[in-house]
């Protein structure tokens, strides 16, 4: 009997969930309810299923593909590539944006439904890499569309991209706290 009392009821009921979301959710005192704001709930569900639009530009796209594939497996984070911009939430700009492509990038971005985020992957998308002075290159995609997360590297490793996605998830949750 003594032992039974020691067991923490909280652990039984919500241990797995509670630990994970302790930061965002409050426990109703004494009851089995979890309270949260809808804002936080939406943000949580958004961050757990970020669907990027399949959109490769250059070398970085190959590393992005490697991140989707066997060893790195982005599906674990709920990141599943969608072919259509209308079904996606995040755009991973992976590669050099040229002047000819810039208009298309902008249009793709405007076709995505809100809320939407942009990850600039690689030095090219961040600032144009060593092509920044070339006539046909846009020095950084931020001159075309606003960027949320920058992932440096040429190309960034898949681990780098995963870190970028985790940063974006953090950003989404922090946005909901405000």
């Amino acid at each position, binding site marked *: 009997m003594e032992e039974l009392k020691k067991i923490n009821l909280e652990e039984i009921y919500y241990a797995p969930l509670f630990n994970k979301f302790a930061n965002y959710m409050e426990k109703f005192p004494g009851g089995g309810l979890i309270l949260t704001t809808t804002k936080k709930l939406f943000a949580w569900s958004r961050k757990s299923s970020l669907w990027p*639009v*399949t*959109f*490769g*530009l*250059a*070398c970085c*796209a*190959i*590393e992005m*593909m*490697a991140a989707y*594939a*066997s*060893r790195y497996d982005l599906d674990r984070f709920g990141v599943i590539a969608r*072919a259509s*911009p209308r079904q996606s939430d995040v755009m991973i700009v992976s*590669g*050099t944006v*040229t002047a*000819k*492509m810039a208009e*298309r990038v902008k249009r*793709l971005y405007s076709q995505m439904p809100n809320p939407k985020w942009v990850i600039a992957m690689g030095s090219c998308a961040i600032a144009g890499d*060593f*092509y920044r002075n*070339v*006539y*046909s*290159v846009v020095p950084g995609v931020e001159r075309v569309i606003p960027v949320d997360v920058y992932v440096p590297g*040429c*190309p960034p*490793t898949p681990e780098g991209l995963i870190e970028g996605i985790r940063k974006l998830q953090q950003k989404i949750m922090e946005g909901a706290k405000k």
Partner: protein
Amino acid sequence: MEEKVKISEPEEEIILNMGPQHPSTHGVLRIILKLSGEKIVSAKPDIGYLHRGVEKLGETVTYVQFLPMLDRNDYLSATTNELGLVLAVEKLANIPVPERAQYIRVLFSELSRLASHLVWLGTFCLDLGGALGGGTSVFLFCFREREKILDIFEKMTGSRMHPHLMQYGGVRYDVYPGMDKDVKEILDLMEERINEYEEMLVNNPVFIDRTKGVGILPKEVAMEYGCSGPVLRGSGVKYDLRKAHPYSSYDKFDFEIPVGENGDVFDRFKVRMEEMRQSVRIVRQALEGLPEGPITSQMPVKVKVAVRTPPGEVYTAIESPRGELGYYICSDGKPNAYRLKIRAPSFSNLSVLPYLLKDHLVADIVAILGSLDPVFGDVDR
């Protein structure tokens, strides 16, 4: 194949725009299609969405600075890009290359050929995808093997995709201790896996239906358009620069050149599969015969003007995974080129696309395009 679906002729032609953001265009290609029903009347590819002005850049920066930039050109097989330029400059400036360096160059060129063909196979099957019932699994398998090859690049040079391995007069890195064990492990695995993939695909009736007899490229047309590499060999022309004009001691290696018969998508697939087997053979020989000695004839490059060429012109070509990759350099004696032209294999291979697409169905586009294996960093430069 006889029982193709009969399509009644519609009266009107429509214009359909495919790309530049399309999951199956292997990058940023736009094709403007004129369709009559499902049939393609004419196709106009629109390229240049990845034009980064590499040739202009090559005139403004020195040879030493330009070498790492070239990695980004044909990004699936970075080492062969470097090899081409390095050979051209060495020929013009008469720089000797030690034999060990030549062997290391061959070794890594072939490893990157393997990696490149693996990406091709993966994406090609992903595009055929839905109909194949498990196209995605081939993609996942191929990337699994590719990661293992990239690991060797990473261990050797510190970078997975853009190794910057070459330097004028040799290579920058010697093989690390224990590399032959790593490589042999992969080769054994690859030999097994190549057979497995081929069996898996060739015994799949859907795959055969979608590739056999589709996109036939006759020999003469392939030559007129300047197609090279597996596209040319798939049409039955036995031509490989590694045999025809051996460079970097390729003449000391024993390998065969696979050729196709009909020049359709299936033949190009076959040729590439066989090429992977031959690459495995070459890597094995390179590992076994790796001679002792220095890895470079020059001092390690510290300053950017370290390499100068005498005035003159030179053209050298190598066999990259996509075909004839050539560099034409016109030099006026400065440490940078006066004019640097890159003869890109993908550019010529892709120019045959309008010919191939004519009178095919829309669904065949991805099969045909995939079989040409264009890399857009290479097409647009």
